[in-house]
Structures are given as structure tokens and as C-alpha cells.
């Protein structure tokens, strides 16, 4: 092995040596440039989340603190007005952010966990197991999410934890379809076959090769589900089946008494509605953006971190060779 010329990788000279750190900067850059709506959505949701977390410090009034100003329109003291019990709407909305977003995020996280568990095992194991599980999922998905959640509430009851569990179950099973699809498509890749060929056990293939490659799909599902979860919590609270009063979740704020006073004090329903709508829209936009940015096929040959690999456009055009 004397005079062997070493083949150097022809790296992109514009690519910085520290790949990981710049990858995030890269990603954010692309997000802002190519999907401004998605970036806006992310920012708004993050802002509300921060507001919610620091509610105690930011909100001028307590969430259940009544004042003597009943149903007063927006003013200096009460930025968004007060409700029929004299509670400051602005404060309640901030506290509501905490509830809605926290419940939404927890439920979505749990739902995504179920989706991955069910979808990955079903897709990976295949065969009879897959068929049976998918028929079960079919049946589950035949029932609309809201109805399903009502059914589940009748089993679990109401309350914060119960609401989270109910929402996660209602959303999680459907998401398993998408995960299963992703797993099936990854499974057909040559590198999975390569894993088997070098002697990897099934477990190793699943954990080391399949899960990392469906990560992008999972993150996208998670993001898109957040808005669904928030809406479901709002719906359940609206129906009085979610968290108990004086729950300032936005859905709860929209229900019951607020509806009665809709024409007298529209600010009682307007603001929760607007905030709810904004967050749902924002997370949807961000989820779409994320899916576009992370999908390797849509990137058309651009590398994992958004950088074009050192190949030529034409090589890719001319790539297909004889079988």
C-alpha cells in the first residue's frame, strides 16, 4: 500500500468548522428568510409562553381577584376591561396563557409519545401485528376527536391531569399513522438493509437508524399538534368539561357567562378569542415551516444543515445510471 493517493473530502469551503452551532443559526436564518410567517408564529407563541410563565410578575391583578369595576370597558387601569365578576380580563388572559399553553404542551408531548410508540413498533414489526394495530387505529380514528375526548372524560373524569390525558389519547393515536408512514419509508432505505447486513439486531436498527431519521417528522407532528391540543382544551373548557372554574383558560373564558354578556361586554370574549386564534395560527405556521425546512426531499439535494453538498447541479440531473 505504498504510493496511494488519499482521497480528500471536498468540503464546502464556506462551511464553518464548527458544524453544530452554526446549524442552528443557519436554520433560524432560513426560517426567517423563507418562512417569515412561521418565524412570526414561533415568536408570538414563545412570547405568550413567557408571559404565562411569569404571570405572577406581569399580571397587574390576580386571576381570581375581583374588583368593584364590573364589566367595565378597556381603560387605563384595566387594559382589556373587566368581566362580570370584576376580574381583570388582561390578567386572566395572561394566567390563561399559562394554563392553555402548559396543558397544550403536556398533552401534545404525551400524544407524540404515543404516536411514536404505536407507529414505530407497528411500522417496524410489520406483518400481522401491524395489520391488527392499524385496524384498531382505523376504528379509533373513525370517531371525531371531540367525541372521543367526551367518551374518555366519561371514563377518566374532569380535572387538569385528566384533561391532559384525555387530549393526549384523542390526538396521539391518529398521529401514529404518520409516524408509521415515515418508518415504512425509512425502512426501505439501503442503509437499513446495510444495518442488517453487518449484523445489527432489530433493536439497534430501530433505535440507532430509524428513530433518528424520523426525528424531523416527529418534531413536525409535535408542532402541528400543539394548536390542536390547545383548541381541544379550549373546546372542553367551553363545554364545561375541562378544568374547573375559576380556570382562566381561554376556552373557559369564552364559555358560559361570557357568552351571555357578549353584546354588553364584548371584550370578555373578544380578547380570549383573539389570543387563542393567534396562537393556533402561529403554531400552525411554524409547524408548516418546520416541515418544509426539515424535509430532505423538498430541499432538493441540499445537505442536512441547509448547506449545499459539494456536488454539481448537473451531477444530480444526470445521476440515474443503468440498473
Amino acid at each position: 500500500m505504498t504510493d496511494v493517493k488519499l482521497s480528500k473530502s471536498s468540503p464546502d469551503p464556506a462551511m464553518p468548522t464548527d458544524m453544530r452551532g452554526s446549524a442552528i443559526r443557519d436554520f433560524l436564518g432560513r426560517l426567517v428568510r423563507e418562512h417569515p410567517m412561521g418565524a412570526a408564529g414561533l415568536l408570538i407563541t414563545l412570547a405568550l409562553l413567557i408571559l404565562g410563565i411569569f404571570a405572577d410578575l406581569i399580571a397587574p391583578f390576580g386571576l381570581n381577584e375581583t374588583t368593584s369595576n364590573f364589566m367595565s370597558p378597556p381603560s387605563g387601569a384595566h387594559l382589556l376591561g373587566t368581566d362580570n365578576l370584576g376580574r381583570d380580563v388582561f390578567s386572566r388572559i395572561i394566567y390563561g396563557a399559562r394554563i392553555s399553553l402548559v396543558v397544550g404542551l403536556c398533552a401534545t408531548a404525551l400524544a407524540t409519545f404515543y404516536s411514536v410508540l404505536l407507529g414505530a413498533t407497528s411500522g417496524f414489526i410489520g406483518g400481522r401485528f401491524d395489520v391488527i394495530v392499524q385496524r384498531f387505529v382505523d376504528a379509533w380514528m373513525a370517531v371525531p376527536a371531540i367525541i372521543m375526548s367526551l367518551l374518555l372524560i366519561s371514563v377518566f373524569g374532569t380535572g387538569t391531569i385528566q384533561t391532559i390525558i384525555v387530549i393526549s389519547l384523542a390526538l396521539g393515536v391518529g398521529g401514529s399513522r404518520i409516524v408509521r408512514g415515515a418508518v415504512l419509508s425509512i425502512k426501505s432505505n439501503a442503509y437499513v438493509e446495510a444495518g442488517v447486513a453487518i449484523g445489527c439486531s432489530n433493536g439497534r436498527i430501530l433505535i440507532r437508524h430509524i428513530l433518528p431519521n424520523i426525528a424531523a417528522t416527529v418534531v413536525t407532528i409535535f408542532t402541528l399538534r400543539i394548536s390542536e391540543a390547545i383548541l381541544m382544551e379550549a373546546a372542553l373548557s367551553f363545554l364545561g368539561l375541562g378544568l374547573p372554574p375559576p380556570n382562566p383558560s381561554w376556552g373557559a373564558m369564552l364559555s358560559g357567562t361570557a357568552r351571555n354578556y357578549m353584546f354588553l361586554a364584548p371584550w370578555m370574549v373578544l380578547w380570549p378569542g383573539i389570543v387563542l386564534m393567534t396562537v393556533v395560527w402561529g403554531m400552525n405556521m411554524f409547524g408548516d415551516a418546520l416541515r418544509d425546512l426539515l424535509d430532505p426531499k423538498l430541499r432538493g439535494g441540499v445537505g442536512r444543515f441547509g448547506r449545499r453538498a459539494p456536488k454539481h447541479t448537473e451531477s444530480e440531473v444526470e445521476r440515474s445510471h443503468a440498473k
Partner: protein
Amino acid sequence: MNVATDNKEARPLLEVRDLKKYFPIHAGFMQRKVADVKAVDGISFSIKRGETFGLVGESGCGKSTTGRAVLQLQKPTSGNVRFDGQDLAGMSPSQLRSVRKHMQLIFQDPYASLDPRMPVGDIVGEPLVVHGLAKGSEYKERIANLFAMVELDPAMTERYPHEFSGGQRQRVGIARALASEPSFIVCDEPISALDVSVAAQITNLFIRLRNELNLTYLFIAHDLSVVRNVSDRIAVMYLGRVVEIIESELLNVHALHPYTKSLLSAVPVPDPVADRKRERILLKGEVPSPVNPPSGCTFHTRCPMATDLCRNKPPELKPHASGQWVSCHHV
């Protein structure tokens, strides 16, 4: 050279007997099986230690499926595969995984065969991890050696596959296949997806590695010129069956089966003067579908020498002088 007992030397490294692989086609509401794609329809051959055995044929002939069936990546429908005397079909999954140390696969597509989320060092080292062959500093050392062996810069181990060109990725795939120090490697169209000049480099790499490490190859390709250059013996496949097995030196001068001859004439030689002197045999028609192969000899629909016998009775692979095997009634 292998310093081994007489027995081991004499025994072929790989023996394939009557291998069949059918893929069922399901249709209808109940997804019942309606037909089989007879991808591999009864083939037999054996490969000696240190030999390079070429398997050549056009698309649909079953050569890739053969490679995978031999390695048990596709479970054969029937037939026998013995590796170093052991029957692979009878093994338990963990036994089989252990045997995989000794028999590896190099893929056609250098882009799809490397996990895009793993640095190439990890990809190459995975066999070492899976079989517990090296740890710590020895692990790092072996990976560096493997990189050097395939002419890649060992400083590149942290990079990801997409940063490399096609030829370099193929080198990574080769390094991975060598990691567990196998004695037998199935090369499935390893250079078809590469540029002409890079393909030549990789072909030379294959030859060098074979000589240095005394490897045994099952070299599968559709390009007859390449297979002939690399192999000691060549098996020509058509529609799931072997029609001829011949030594590569004799291919040009002593091919006997009509399909082999037409295949030879269809491949142009990059030398116009020499090419014009060669015999031209143009086949009629197209390759039939493996779902419904013709009766008798599967080649009869396109063969210039076909007779009634050919239409009714499938020929057998019979030995001829000079170690050749031919499956034809008229040879």
C-alpha cells in the same frame, strides 16, 4: 495465502444449490396470492476461497436477488446455501448475526446506503460495535486503518455522508464492509452509480483489497466489461436462471450459450476499428416478465436457434470441457 488445514482449503467457501426466490403478488379484496414473481428460479454454483465469481445479466434476471438470498437478507423460498460448510437457512437469528461478521455486502447506491444522520467514522465502526470487536483506543485505531485502506483521509471521520462525493461514499461503504474482517463480500453493482473515471479508481481498489486481504467476491453487475475485468469465473443469468458459467479469459473466445453471445455482441468496445470486426447478433423482442416466464427454455422467445424442444423442455446446466457449464439443448 491461507494457511489452513487441507480440508478447509478444499471446501468451497460458498455453495448454492437450487436456490429459488419467489415474490408473491397479492391482489383482490382479501389480498390473496395470485401469482409469483419468479425472481430466482433454481440456480446452483459454488465459489472457492479467494475466487472472484462474477454474476452478470440484464435487469430482471435476478442477480441482485441472488446476492441477497445468499446472504439471507431475503429468505430464500427454497434451496440450500452453505457458507464455509454451514447451512445458513437452518441458523437461528443470533447465529446468523454472528456469521455476518464473515460475509458482507457492498451496495450499489453510495447515497442511500449510508445513514445520513451518522458521521462516517461511526458508520465504518458500527460492525466493530455490533460484534464487540474493539473498544476505546483500539476502536479508533482500527477505524483509522480502515480509512487508510480505502484511501480516505482518516481526519474525515467526523464528517457526514453528504459532504462526500459518490466515489468517496462508496469507499466508506467498502470500509464498513471490511471492518469485521470478512472472508466473503457480495458486491452488488458497486460501480454502476459512479462516473467513469471514479469507477476505474474503485475497481482498482477492489482488486487491490482482494489481493491484500485474500477476499472472496461475488461480483454482481450488468456491465460485462467490468465483470470480466474483475472476475475469475462468470455466471450469466437470464430470467432467474443461470445459462452459462465460464472462465473470464474464455468469455470472448469460447462463449457457448446464444444469450451469452448476443450479450457480448451488444456491448460495444471503445475502439471503433476493433468493434467493427466483431460479430453482431441482434436479439428480437424484449425480456419477458418474470411473473409469466416462457415455457421450456426461458430464452426461446428471443433465441435465434430455438426449436420445439426448446419450447417444451427446460434445459439443464451441464458441464462441458474446460470447466464450462451451459444450459442449452443445442450446445
